[in-house]
Every structure is written in C-alpha cells, then in structure tokens.
C-alpha cells in the first residue's frame, strides 16, 4: 500500500480510455473539469464534452436528454453540488424514468479539506441511496475506480459513483475484479468484521492489524456497492463474528452504517457499531487532521471494535 493515487485521477484516465472505446460516451461538467479530471476527455473529444457552466440543475437535465437520445452521459462535479443542488432533478429527470446517466462526483467526504464544510459532502450517499432505481458505488482506491467505470458503462439504469479529492493508498492489484452489487471480502474475522467503504477500506485494513496484535480476529470487507447492498456477504460476516463495525467517510445517518443496520435488523440482529461523521458539519483543515477530528481513522475503528466486543452477547 505504498503508492497513493486519488480516485478522481483514476476516473480521468478511465473515462478517457472508455471514450476511445465507445463513441456513445459523452461527458458533462459544471465548470470543474480540472478538479473532476474530465478535462482529459474534453481535450481529446471536444465535440462529446459539454461544459455546462456553473449550473448543476441544467447539467442533470441535459444529461437526461442525452441519455434519451441514446448517448451514455457521464456528468461530473463536486459531490455536494451534484447530489445536493440538483437532487430533485436527479429524482425526476433521471431516476424516475430510469435513464442511463452516470453521475460521477468528485470531492466526496470531508477529506476535501481546507475548503471547509460548504464543499464537504457528508450526506450524498444517504440522499442518493433513498432514490428508487439508483445504484450507489464508492471505490476504495484507484484500481477499483477504473474497474467501476468500465463496469457501469454496460449497466442499465442510473448510477452514482463517489470519488475523492485526496490521494489514497492503492489497495488492489491490476487483476482486481469488481462486480456491481458484490462486496469484496479481504479477510473474514471470527471476532469482528469491519465493513468499510471508500477511503475507509485502507483505514479498516490498518485497524485490523492493530486488533490482531491484541489477539482480536478482525476481518475487513470492502462494500463498494452500497446500493444494492450485498446482503449475502453482510449476513455471512455477521454470522461469522456476530459483531459488525461499519466505517465510512460520511454521516452515520443514512449511509453504509444505516444500510447494514437496516438489513441485519431484519434478518440477523447483531451489534452494529457505526464509525462515521456524527450529526454535524465539517470544518477547514488538512484531510488527515479532519479524519482525526471527526473520528474516522483506523484508531477510531479499533476503539469501536473493542467496545463492540465488550458488549457482545
């Protein structure tokens, strides 16, 4: 895990490759193509790139229209503006008619950093997950991002992919296989299983090592597809350890932790401890500093796992 690449950079490269392979791919951006990395596609395919200016609502509607005309639109901007500013447009113009639009947002989570709370998307997973027909995916690293962009190209229906700004460790090898709706078991623990998404997967791996030193057998499962949730794998993890810790760079309300708790409460109730951002806004700071302040580091996962173990019935 020595190399670090931002998932948005992997997106820029994957999108360009996809554009070379498929003529139906069109890309939209809302004046942030340098940040979302769609600029690489724009430079090579100017006729298939539409800069919509600072108008996210119109971008979503235009993407819907392009999909109706048979194109495969990728629409990108910061996660907070894509899913928040234009939520109702996504609901009405894309999800309701079940259109093939790919909403690939960058700058998800608080690791956006210094720009502060207005630019830190900590509720996007919640508001996308609640929409019927929507698929919600968060890659753990650059390798998985490339696999996801290729996989969603052939998928039918709307997809939301959440990317990050900061450079994050590369976890997976080139031969990593991603399947929409399938969780990826890195290891299965007898004492506790950590279900993590996005950049929290590498934190979970580090947490599992710390726990192993304490003779706690902790497993790590990458839940990149948050919706539809891979119930089979979640259930298997719960049955194996009877204690679950979820980890996400997102509000604990409505995100991965909620999805897992909702699912398990109906089929196999066990303790579910949610590591994530409590019910509050972020602030400016370095990504590392913010992760500590908002208690979403490997150490916080370790604390949650210990507490969960102590209350295990």
């Amino acid at each position: 895990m020595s190399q670090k690449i931002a998932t948005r950079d992997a997106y820029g490269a994957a999108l360009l490759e996809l554009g070379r392979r498929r003529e139906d791919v069109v890309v939209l951006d809302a004046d942030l193509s340098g940040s979302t990395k769609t600029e690489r596609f724009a430079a090579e395919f100017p006729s298939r790139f539409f800069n919509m200016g600072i108008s996210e609502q119109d971008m979503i509607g235009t993407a819907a229209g392009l999909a109706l005309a048979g194109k495969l639109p990728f629409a990108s901007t910061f996660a907070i503006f894509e899913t928040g500013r234009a939520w109702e447009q996504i609901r009405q113009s894309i999800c309701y008619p079940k259109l093939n639009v790919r909403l690939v947002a960058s700058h998800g989570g608080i690791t956006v950093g210094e720009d502060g709370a207005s630019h830190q998307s900590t509720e996007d997973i919640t508001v996308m997950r609640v929409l019927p027909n929507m698929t919600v995916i968060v890659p753990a690293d650059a390798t998985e991002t490339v696999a996801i962009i290729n996989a969603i190209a052939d998928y039918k229906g709307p997809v939301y992919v959440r990317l990050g700004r900061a450079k994050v460790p590369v976890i997976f090898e080139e031969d990593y296989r991603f399947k929409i709706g399938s969780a990826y078991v890195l290891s299965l623990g007898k004492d506790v299983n950590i279900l993590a998404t996005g950049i929290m997967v590498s934190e979970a791996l580090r947490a599992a090592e710390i726990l192993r030193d304490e003779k706690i057998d902790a497993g790590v499962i990458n839940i990149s597809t948050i919706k539809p949730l891979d119930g089979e794998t979640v259930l298997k993890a719960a049955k194996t350890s009877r204690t679950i810790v979820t980890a996400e760079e997102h509000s604990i309300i409505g995100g991965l932790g909620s999805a897992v708790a909702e699912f398990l409460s109906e089929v196999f109730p066990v303790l579910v401890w949610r590591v994530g951002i409590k019910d509050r806004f972020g602030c400016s700071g370095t990504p590392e500093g913010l992760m500590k302040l908002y208690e979403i580091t490997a150490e916080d996962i370790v604390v949650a796992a210990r507490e969960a173990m102590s209350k295990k019935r």
Partner: protein
Amino acid sequence: MEIKTADIAKLKKTARMIRIDILKMLTIAGSGHTGGSLSATDIVTALYFAKMRHDPNNPEWQERDRFILSKGHAAPLLYAVLARSEYFGMDMLTTLRKIDSPLQGHPSKNTLPGIEASTGSLGQGLSIANGIALGLRLDGYNARVYVLLGDGETQEGQVWEAAMTSSHYKIDNLCAIIDNNGLQIDGRVKDVMGIDPLVDKWRAFGWHTIEIDGHDMEEILSAFDEAEEVKGKPTMIIAHTIKGKGVSFFEGKARYHGIAPTPEELATALLELEDKDLVV
C-alpha cells in the same frame, strides 16, 4: 410549407375533438388540470397532426421529432393527442389518474408509448430538450425537438440556465413554445411573480423569438416553419393563449388551473364545443 385551407379546417376540427376528449377524461377522473390543457390544445394539435415527423407504429424511431411537455400538468392534452394519433386506444383515456393506469396525473416515460420524458416538476423540460437535441446533432439526424413550457414555469431558475445552454451550444434543432396564458395556480402571473418583458428576456438570452396568437392555426404553423429556417440559434415561440380556451365559463379563470369539470359543467361545455361544428 403551405397549408391548404382544408387542412386548417381539419386541424381546427381535430383540436376541438381533443378539447372534448380532455374535458371528458378530466370529468371521469374527477381531478386534474383543465385550464392549461385547453390553452395549449391548438399548439400541440398542430405539432402532432401537421408538423412533427413521428410514427405511432414505431414510437422509438430514432429520427423522429420529439415533443417534451415541460408543463407536465397538461398531461390530459398529451394523452388525448397521443390517443388520437393512435399510439394507444381511445378507451385508455377513461383510466386517467386511476391506480395501475399508465395515464398518471403527470406524464411518466416508460409507461406509455409516445411519452418522451417524465415531467411534472416544473422547470426541467428545456434542459432535457437541449440534451436530446445535442444527442440528435451528434448522430447527424435531421430531427427536431419541440418543448412546451408554461409562462409561470419560467419563474424556475433552471429554465434560464437551460436558456443559456441552448444559445451557447447553438441548438437550432430546438423549438420551444411558451403557453403564455397569464395565469398560474395562485392567480395572475404578473401578480404572483412577474416575468415580463418575456420577448426581450429570451432575445437577450440569444434566442430567435416569434410572438403569435396561440389559438390561430395559421400563425402557429407558420411560426413552426419559420423556426425550422433559423440557423445557429434556438427559437422561442411566445404563444399568447387563453387559459381554459374553448369553454366560455373556464376561459381566463385561474380557478380552473387545477380542477376538473363537474358532470354538469361538462354537459354545458360539450354543447358549446359541439355547436362549433356548424361554423367549421
């Protein structure tokens, strides 16, 4: 394209039949939007029965002209026009707003052939129309996209975002129409939130603008023809209309924006509309 007098007469008759369909289906449904369906009837009738290239037997024909009803509450009008175009049977119209009916209160794509987009949340149709028009242009198709907006609808900010996009990308295979009936749910548009000067605004946003009487079939058709000749910019037709047009006691009344006729009102309205057989 020269329209023969006989064709105009036929179109007027079709529009009248569609007004009757709208009133009947709304009365059976017991709820729905009467005023704005009747105000736009002549415009949409002209599109489907004289202007657009479309094929009810092949609704997904890629090179067809598209019509987006951005003011989705005028769904009864769209359903009646599609039924009379034989996209589906006339008997379907009696199921408007009923459970399990594909004729939802507002148009839903994928439930009925001929519906191009799910609409009903105002302000989103022009963006969708832009996207379709850009997609058609990329594929080199000669097809045109028509989108109908309400005047009150232009109070939505997204409309102006989309207006910028249409002219920025020189989308000339697009023709938008505003059903300028001057009324919205809460009253007169100018009292609720003024939108004038409408023509100046669209022109300032880089559009070719045409003002017409939205109930004059010749003017409607010649505006569509003019729009087709305009290159390098989108066209906006501002159609001055009367809310509730065709039924004297509905005309010009905001109250009939969102309510259906009673059976008694229907009976009186039908007498008025059927009488006009004599003058056509």
